[in-house]
């Protein structure tokens, strides 16, 4: 990845909405623009900007009702459940905000799970009832090469119908290899859509290549990945802008990879290494505005909510547009089957409830927890 990568056509769409233009549209947005945005059947980017602007704050309750209606219509009153499995915490990138980064100076063992250890993790999670898992590694193509990822996907598929990965950006042919083994989804956060911030927080390594990362989700879609999850790491830059760009990315992917289901996550930076300061923190209220605005702009897009957020807030967010939740998560390799070993964790979990407790909370909120929403038969003949 020595030279800069070829631009995705999305780069042009992003370039058409630079920060200055977007700030101007948001500053100009008045109550009337917010009202119009809420009444439209199909929203324009300008409408989204209005809903993300401070002018929309007084209309938050109305936005919440609309967002709930959209979500229920498309997803029903159900919440899908998934759980992450951290395969490796070895990482060659040096993202300033991340607990796995070399420069973070955090104690804790670094390792990559063996096949047997992955099995042990799968076994425990399958017994909790999970049927959907997300396999994660650091940005370490040497410690966790594509061949290793392929073995891990194939192995996890023995336990779970739905297997997704959240790993470093891959080439299309590599995504294709994983799809052939039964990979359903790819989660890949752009971290930030703001080029300058991206360059600042990724000071070295292959991850510096903004264009290569920006094109990863569509490479995955073109390789046949059915579920593409996007997100900006909230706190790196102004959430109103990041939310807007994320939504444009989602809409672009809906057209470009029309056979893939797109979903958006809202990972909010809360626990960071001491060397990093969160310069653009967002409040709960701002997080809610962001989710509602994106739901109204993208009624058919899934929303994932991880255990980064605390239990009480997660429960309140369920009826506001969430469609998938993780539960009982650990962010350290071997965290489920080998709890005693103090491997390095990526970030601190806020919602520490067991899967059963989260399921109960979902039911209390008036939603049906859905463990399974994908079938092995999509890939292979029944035995």
């Amino acid at each position, binding site marked *: 990845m020595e030279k800069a990568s070829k631009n995705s056509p999305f780069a042009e769409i992003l370039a058409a909405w630079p920060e200055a233009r977007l700030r101007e549209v948001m500053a100009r947005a008045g109550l009337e623009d917010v009202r119009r945005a809420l009444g439209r059947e199909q929203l324009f980017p300008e409408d989204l900007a209005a809903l993300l602007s401070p002018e929309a704050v007084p209309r938050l309750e109305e936005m919440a009702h609309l967002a709930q209606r959209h979500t229920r219509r498309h997803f*029903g009153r159900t919440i899908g459940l998934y759980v992450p499995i951290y395969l490796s915490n070895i990482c060659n990138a040096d993202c300033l905000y991340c607990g796995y980064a070399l420069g973070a100076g955090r104690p804790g063992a670094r390792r990559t799970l063996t096949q047997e250890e992955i099995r042990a993790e799968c076994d425990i999670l399958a017994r909790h009832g999970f049927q959907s898992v997300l396999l994660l590694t650091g940005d370490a193509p040497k410690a966790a090469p594509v061949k290793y990822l392929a073995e891990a996907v194939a192995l996890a598929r023995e336990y779970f119908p739905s297997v997704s990965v959240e790993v470093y950006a891959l080439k299309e042919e590599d995504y294709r290899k994983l799809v052939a083994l039964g990979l359903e989804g790819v989660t890949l956060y752009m971290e930030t859509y703001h080029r300058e911030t991206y360059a600042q927080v990724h000071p070295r390594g292959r991850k510096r290549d903004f264009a290569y990362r920006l094109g990863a989700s569509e490479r995955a879609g073109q390789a046949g990945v059915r579920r593409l999850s996007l997100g900006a790491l909230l706190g790196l830059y102004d959430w109103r802008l990041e939310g807007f760009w994320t939504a444009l990315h989602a809409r672009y992917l809906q057209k470009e990879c029309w056979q893939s289901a797109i979903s958006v996550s809202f990972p909010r930076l809360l626990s960071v290494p001491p060397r990093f300061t969160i310069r653009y923190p967002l409040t709960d209220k701002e997080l809610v505005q962001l989710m509602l605005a994106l739901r109204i702009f993208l009624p*058919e897009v899934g929303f994932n909510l991880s255990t980064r957020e605390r239990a009480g807030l997660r429960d309140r967010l369920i009826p506001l547009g969430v469609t998938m939740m993780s539960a009982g998560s650990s962010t350290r390799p071997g965290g489920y089957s080998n709890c005693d070993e103090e491997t390095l964790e990526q970030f601190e979990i806020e919602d520490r409830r067991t899967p059963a407790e989260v399921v109960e909370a979902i039911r209390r909120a008036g939603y049906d927890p859905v463990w399974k929403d994908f079938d092995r*038969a999509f890939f292979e003949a029944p035995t």
Partner: protein
Amino acid sequence: MVPMKTLMNKDPLVIAGRSFRSRLMVGTGKFPSAEALSKALQSSKAEIVTVALRRVDLSKPQGDSILSVLDPAKYLILPNTSGARTAEEAVRLARLARAMGLPPWVKLELTPEPRYLLPDPVETLKAAEMLIKEGFVVLPYIQADPILAKRLEELGTATVMPLGAPIGSNRGLRTRDMIRIIIEQAKVPVVVDAGLGAPSHAAEAMEMGADAVLVNTALADAADHGMMAGAFALAVEAGRMAYLAGLGPERETAAASSPLTGFLE
């Protein structure tokens, strides 16, 4: 007036040689709980209930919020292939359901794009052919396309199931004109599927001569699931009665006072 019960007994819905008294089919997705689904099913009086194979684990029906409330003695459980993008995927799902002991009926749903869940006519036709050869009773979900409906009928599908509007949209019979042609031309039962958001939409489809309707979102999204299912059941019966009774034609203008053919008198 003909008592409702008598009407239903004398006017069964026949699909692939099997008779049903109810003309309302129910989908099971999107409900907030097993109890909600159960209430809706009871009030709907439905006899055919469809279940997404991707959503259920047929090897573990206990504890599942859908399978746990479906008594196979009471309902024909109609497995559907929603989520399948190709004919091969749909066929694999159908075989799996049959291998797990469900009757060899399948609601063929080939929806390659997850946004509007519109059916793929090419893959649907291919899958229908493969499944019919394997002995399945095939009920295909289709766009309201009269030619496709005839092509499927000729292959031997048990019904055709044209959409009224995109799944979950609650928009009603947006495809009314094409559905009218499908009904006029069909030799197999026509089941209007998807988009019916209110009992009046269901009644409208039945008045036009649809043989049955399938509803899911409108029931799952109601505040009172049982009551809404009951309302749909009544609407379907009312629409059917009106159709059998012979609705008068709609007139756009009053009868002309100077008839064009008056000179013939």
